[in-house]
């Protein structure tokens, strides 16, 4: 399928481009790597020697391609501080973030679509109330919502653990409990964003000529709205969902910190504070790959739903 092939090529090029830009962006920090590893008292020769060992004395683009070639083979180097391989560090942290983001995406997708549809069909006060609530959700940062949830449900009511993460394999119940608040905090803004898009796209679609013609055939209003109008609006809704996923990932960085979840975000924060260059590069790349995969899945869904896209 040419459409999906095109999207695949654009996705891969996006991964390369972002990695290059971030590589260049953090390259000034390379000068300090040897100094950081060897300590303040290292002599200039020791620093030069370590730089040569690490290949940091070579031109920056040569270093990038070296890194890239190794990365493509699955070797992202080792952390400067823990001497753990970057791949392993990401492998440990990734599932926490992915579990959270997948849950948030699914829940906010379902609720966001439902709210958007309801708001477009019902109009009147239902629409107004939903519009106002989604403005609130849109305006409040996820971590402010998270702090509110912690205060109420962990501290005042004591229903849920304030922080910490239990592995799914250790105790599924505790795992679910540790994710309730993080997921809720990220879901609320995402629902708002998706519902707004679904609503306006549904309203625009309901004014289309073919909707009148479908009604003229005596089809039930439910069928017209939920089968025909929804399918034609879903492309916009899914694209909004893809945009939200980037926001959800960004929000998750702060949310992981609030709930002390050992995810990709807290890894990136540790790496940033310690200027652990290989680790930061690996973490950024992991984020880009998640976004790109989500976008490809959305493209796949759009192509499935929209024959014009699929067949052009």
């Amino acid at each position, binding site marked *: 399928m040419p459409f999906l092939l095109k999207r695949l090529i*654009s996705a891969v090029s996006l991964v390369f481009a972002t990695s290059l*830009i971030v590589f260049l962006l953090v390259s000034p920090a390379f000068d300090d790597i040897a100094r950081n590893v060897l300590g303040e008292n290292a002599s200039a020769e020791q620093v030069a020697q370590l730089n040569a060992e690490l290949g940091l004395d070579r031109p920056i683009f040569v270093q990038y391609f070296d890194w890239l070639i190794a990365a493509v083979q699955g070797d992202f180097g080792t952390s400067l501080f823990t001497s753990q391989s970057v791949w392993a560090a990401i492998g440990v942290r990734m599932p926490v973030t992915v579990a959270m983001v997948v849950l948030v995406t699914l829940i906010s997708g379902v609720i966001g679509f439902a709210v958007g549809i309801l708001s477009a069909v019902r*109009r009147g006060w239902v629409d107004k109330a939903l519009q106002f609530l989604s403005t609130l959700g849109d305006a*409040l940062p996820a971590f402010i919502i998270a702090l509110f949830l912690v205060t109420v449900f962990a501290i005042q009511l004591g229903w849920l653990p304030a922080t910490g993460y239990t592995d799914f394999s250790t105790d599924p119940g505790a795992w679910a409990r540790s994710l309730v608040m993080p997921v809720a905090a990220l879901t609320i803004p995402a629902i708002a964003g998706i519902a707004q898009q679904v609503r306006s796209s549904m309203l625009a679609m309901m004014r289309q000529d073919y909707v009148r013609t479908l009604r*003229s*055939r005596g089809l039930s209003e439910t069928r017209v709205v939920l089968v025909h109008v929804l399918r034609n609006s879903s492309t916009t809704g899914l694209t909004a969902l893809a945009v939200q996923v980037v926001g959800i990932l960004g929000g998750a960085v702060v949310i992981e*910190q609030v709930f002390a979840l050992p995810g990709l975000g807290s890894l990136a924060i540790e790496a940033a504070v310690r200027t652990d260059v290989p680790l930061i590069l690996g973490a950024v790349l992991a984020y880009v790959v998640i976004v790109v995969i989500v976008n490809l899945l959305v493209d796949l869904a759009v192509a499935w739903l929209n024959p014009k896209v699929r067949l052009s």
Partner: protein
Amino acid sequence: MSQTTTLVAAARAAKQGAFRRFLRNPLGVAAATVLLIIVLSALVAPFLPLPSPDLVVLRDAMQSPSAQHLLGTDASGRDVLSRLLLGAQVSLAGAALALVVALVVGLPTGLLAGYYGGPFDAVANWFNNLNMALPGIVLLLAVRAVAGPSIWISMGVFGVLLAPGVFRIVRASVQAVRGELYIDAARVSGLGDARIIGRHVLTVVRAPAIIQSARLASIAIAVQAGLEFLGIADSSVPSWGGMLNEGFRRIFVNPSLIFWPSLAIGLTTMALILLGNAMRDALEDRDAGDSSKVGRPQPASVASLTDRTEASLLSVRDLEVSYGIGDSKNTVVHHVSLDIAPGEVLGLVGESGSGKTQTAFSVLGLLPDGGWVSRGSIRFDGTELATLSTAERRKLRGTDIAYVPQEPLSNLDPSFRIGQQLTEPLRTRLGLSKTQAKERALSLLAKVGIPDPEATFRAYPHEISGGMAQRVLIAGAVAGEPKLLIADEPTTALDVTVQAEVLDLLRDLQSETGMAVLLVTHNFGVVADICDRVAVMKAGRIVETDDVDTILRTPSDPYTQTLLASMLDEGPVRTYVAPTTAGAASSEGSRG
């Protein structure tokens, strides 16, 4: 240049109206007031008699509000109120920095890309996609690794990440006016590109850019607070995020410490978003009222009912169609009465905007949003439709009253195959099985003259021609063997050669099934070809109704005479290849 001047004056007048509309929006005014208070208190904070924000008095730690510390003290005994106000300075300055960077980067590039297009556009688009591939905060973490904990560097970089938000909106507004006459006029009058952009294009861009700025500022405030909360920003100056960070560490000891900074962040971001929305609503002049409200019809006047015969299949009396209610009620069809006998073909003729399509839609019960029958009686086959429930009316559609639209391609759902669109009503309305429905649909397609029914059955609407699509729509309309077919300009959107074929098809189907037809058209050639009787409409009223020969040979109303004369100028009246009228009626679907 006078045209440009008037336009600018008009824009200014519209803006003044916008300001008044904004003042009428309580949410917008409240948001603006809250923001003003926050900005002012940040500005005057240094001059207020408050305790020093950095004064650590450990024995005063975590005090409740008192006369000395109006909002209490934090874990180090520092005054919460003065830290909050000083934090406002940092937050607002950081957001302002990000916004300025975003505007400096996004505004010129958006202007250039919108004005010149081409490669500029492609490059900008690519950068935009790149930006969408990575959560901003993750990139800021990478920046933090290199540049250290300075919040100003972080917010400057974040400004670059926000720039596409400005770019997109500026480019779209510029593209929208680029082709406008007054830009052309300015160019013809010898103004250089730079001056055109500066004088004319910038004015267009200003409003959307301001609205978008409110939104971006809200995002910047949230991200900055997030960075500070993560504890990776410089913590030597008081900041809202920093206060949250410190308060959160002691949340079990004193949950109230996070209350004030949370409130400050939440209020600011929310006020910015609400302000942006209110400005948008005011500038776009959105109708605050619900335009979809309709009322109940009043009965037809007694006088109009005197000549009513029981023999009519459709009998419309004293019909009035309106949009909106109360003061904004606008009536587009007045006192229309018409009858169609079983098996009769009635032509409803008039210029575009004469209300003929509105009349047809009110018989179908499918007036656009906000449209309603405000008076009169529509009796179909012995049933009064004007007061019938929505559900009851739906049951009549497809099986008793069917509809053939004007524009074939926009009237098929682009996402479903033709076959499914034909079988769906057959299955849900007539209760046919899947195989029966398919068989029926294929025979209908063959009947309306589609050469390869199987292939068309499998095709998507965009894969077939306009003439084919119109045949498909006719097949769909007659599938339920209706007693009345309402055809709204069924040939207008088609090529001249196809017009005659489709008209032949309609006539054949009519004589074969004996269904009655209400044919809406502006074309007397079509009328001559197929109609038994004609009703002529003008400005929402029927001016003359008679049999087709009388109307064509000896029309009594002067308006009909004018209409006919204008047709005669263009070609012979009675012809089987219907002549096209220059500037054929545009779709009346939106509003008459």
